[in-house]
């Protein structure tokens, strides 16, 4: 009965088009254009050390953006990633410096605090039916305040925890390949991104992530405990933000309690530039990574060119719009 496509035998190209693979290939385009442009514009841009600097600048925002991607795919939004990052860093500080406990416990504290706060946001959204924007805006403020309260409005230094700064600044890869001293922070970003991409595409949690964003009510009516899964997704996102908190704390060798405001918009921008839809139901981690890289390359390149800072802002705004526009045009063509 189902004789669709008997006649239409697509060639390799249209097969690629149908599978959407070309889209992912093309998504690099904006990034590549930027890279080429900056390389031509400044001899200082394309150096191993600068590329590493760009990657390192991506690491924290990248991790936050990966977390934000999860929530955005469910059709939600997470405005608390920035201050939650700070909060988890402070928790690590409390455990390691104030309580003097060993390093693994600090790691657990940060990730655990992240997961717990994600759990709270998730519960507000799922159980109390508060729109994600408001639930996470509230959390953003609460966590901002709590970070200051807990730290006593003072940075907490990790001087008593030897090796803490290696979490982000050390280089395992550099130990193996001395000419490629990629910092661990970057490695961790890619590990986190890889794991999250796996979860999204291969596990039940990932499946529900997309399903919730696609049509939550129909998922609920399929007998799925949507509230529970939603909370689980927010918790996972929170845990990932906790890793981001460790990265930034390690990089600054301190927990800076006033940091983090504004990072949420940057993370969300990376997600959207990467092609994830804010209305939920679709998105990729690879796209988010590219989005985060685009932002980092852009800012780095403009600085290298010594563009006046106010113009840097203008150009960044314009390029964000253009990058997304290019993506739109591409999709329309391929649709």
């Amino acid at each position, binding site marked *: *009965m*189902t*004789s*669709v*496509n008997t*006649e*239409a035998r*697509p060639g390799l190209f*249209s097969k690629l*088009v*149908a599978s959407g693979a070309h889209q992912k290939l093309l998504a690099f385009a904006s990034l590549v254009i930027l890279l080429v442009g900056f390389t031509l514009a400044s001899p200082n841009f394309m150096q191993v050390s600068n590329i590493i600097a760009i990657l390192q600048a991506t690491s924290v925002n990248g991790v936050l953006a990966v977390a934000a991607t999860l929530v955005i795919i469910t059709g939600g939004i997470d405005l608390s990633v920035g201050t939650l990052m700070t909060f988890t860093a402070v928790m690590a500080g409390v455990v390691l410096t104030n309580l003097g406990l060993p390093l693994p416990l600090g790691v657990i504290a940060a990730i655990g605090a992240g997961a717990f706060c994600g759990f709270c946001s998730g519960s507000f959204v799922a159980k109390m039916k508060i729109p994600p924007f408001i639930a996470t805006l509230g959390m953003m403020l609460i966590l901002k305040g709590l970070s200051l309260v807990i730290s006593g409005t003072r940075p907490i230094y990790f001087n008593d925890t030897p090796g803490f700064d290696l979490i982000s600044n050390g280089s395992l890869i550099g130990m193996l390949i001395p000419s490629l001293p990629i910092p661990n922070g970057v490695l961790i970003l890619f590990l986190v991104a890889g794991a999250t991409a796996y979860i999204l595409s*291969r*596990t*039940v*949690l*990932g*499946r*529900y992530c*997309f*399903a919730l964003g*696609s*049509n939550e*009510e*129909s*998922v*609920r*009516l*399929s*007998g*799925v*405990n949507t509230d529970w899964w939603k909370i689980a997704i927010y918790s996972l996102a929170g845990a990932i933000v906790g890793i981001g908190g460790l990265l930034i704390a390690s990089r600054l060798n301190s927990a800076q309690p006033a940091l983090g405001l504004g990072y949420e918009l940057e993370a969300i921008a990376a997600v959207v530039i990467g092609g994830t839809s804010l209305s939920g*139901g*679709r998105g990729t981690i690879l796209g988010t990574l590219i989005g985060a890289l685009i932002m980092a390359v852009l800012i780095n390149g403009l600085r290298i060119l010594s563009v006046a800072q106010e113009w840097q802002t203008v150009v960044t705004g314009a390029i964000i719009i253009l990058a997304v526009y290019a993506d739109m045009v591409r999709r329309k063509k391929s*649709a």
Partner: protein
Amino acid sequence: MKELVRMEGIEKRFPGVHALKNARFDLQSGEVHALMGENGAGKSTMMKILSGVYTRDGGTIEVDGRPVGFDGPGAAQDAGVGIIHQELSLMNDLTAAQNIFIGREPRRRFGRLDEAALNSQAADIFSQMNLDLDPRTPVHQMTIAKQQMVEIAKALSYRSHILVMDEPTAALNDAEIADLFTIIRTLRSEGAGIIYISHKMDELKQIADRVTIMRDGETVGTVPAADTPINEIIQMMVGRSLSDSALELADFEHDNVALEVNGLTRGHEIRDVSFKVHKGEILGFAGLMGAGRTEVARAIFGADPRDSGTLMIHGKQVDIKSPRDAVAAGIGYLSEDRKHFGLATGMDVRANIVMTNLKQFSSSLGVLDEAAMQATAQDYIERLGIRTPSDRQEVRLLSGGNQQKVVIAKWLLRDCEVLIFDEPTRGIDVGAKAEIYKLLIELAAQGRAIIVISSELPEVLRISHRVAVMCEGRLTGILDRQDATQESIMKLATLTMREPSTNKRAAQ
């Protein structure tokens, strides 16, 4: 009689689908021209091309004798082509009247709205349609049927001389269908041409002058409605003849109650509803639009809260607070509104089919087994004849009827002991309908208890062991198969009850 529309050699391709192949169609003034075909045959696509929603890849269109190429729905409207789309597309937050006149609202100076005129004009249309609806009612408060009526009202308000109706009656009951047909006949007598798409074969004889049949994107032929036997039309649609033999219902176990509902109540929508379904039984639910059948189903399923009432499964009381509890207790529910409640339309066929049952396809760590999911999806695609290029196709790109089949597949996979089907054949073609009936009967024969809510009385009569009838939130009676006729059902469906005691008696 003059020719209003001529479409020749129409081609349309979507990624992976050749939807229209050299299709043709024509429409004369003063006729109702039915367009028939299986799910996915290309009917809606053809009409979307006519009404400017899609652009064609090839072929010619003439409207009123002039070649046209509409670049948007606005252009088609200007040329006098109006359309009622198969999928409801209303603005839920706006009122009925506001929806009808969107883009053409009566205005005063400086862009100010004349709400009074808006509402009275809408009320006029409603009264022409014999429709009892306050024009100020927001759409999201209406049942699907009422929403469908608003869509019809909107199309009528354009006073187009070419009017396309894509399955307008899928959500309507007999009385409303009769009203609609009256309107159509009036329009026809005024010289308009109506293109009418439906899967309800009995409507053909009542309303159509000619019938064009499509199959697999091609036009098979055009025949006069009056003197072509239905069977012949069906044969043209499906490419073979269907046996019309009466369906054999197996006996059910009279002493084995699968689901017992007692005193179910929720606000004014459900008032003290009690009934039993047995293992192996198909219990039909009939009633007029808004009688409360959907509400009962949703309350049983835990989709809406109940005020009171108890549920027993196999004699054991169960406490169902959410759909999850219901599924865990072995109850499945297929919603009447597949787009909003049945499917994640942005996801692919495979993902939707396995949605109720992901556990079965995942390891203890929650890792999914894609190969197993694919095999299962493929199996259902074949069993139900779901027309899709692959199991990775997004569901929103399937034709309406095929979407419905995906919903059915997903609940078949879940294999519940009690299955509630709410309007299971809405928008499904004759061939597939017959298969679904067979499937329901098979499921019952395998020992499942089945509730079928349907607004098509012939359907209820054909496949139900017993028929429960509702009116205004009450269960007004349950008829055995031998007592159930169109007349006896309609009598109960219009029986406004006063005494709760009568209700109880009737429910026995």
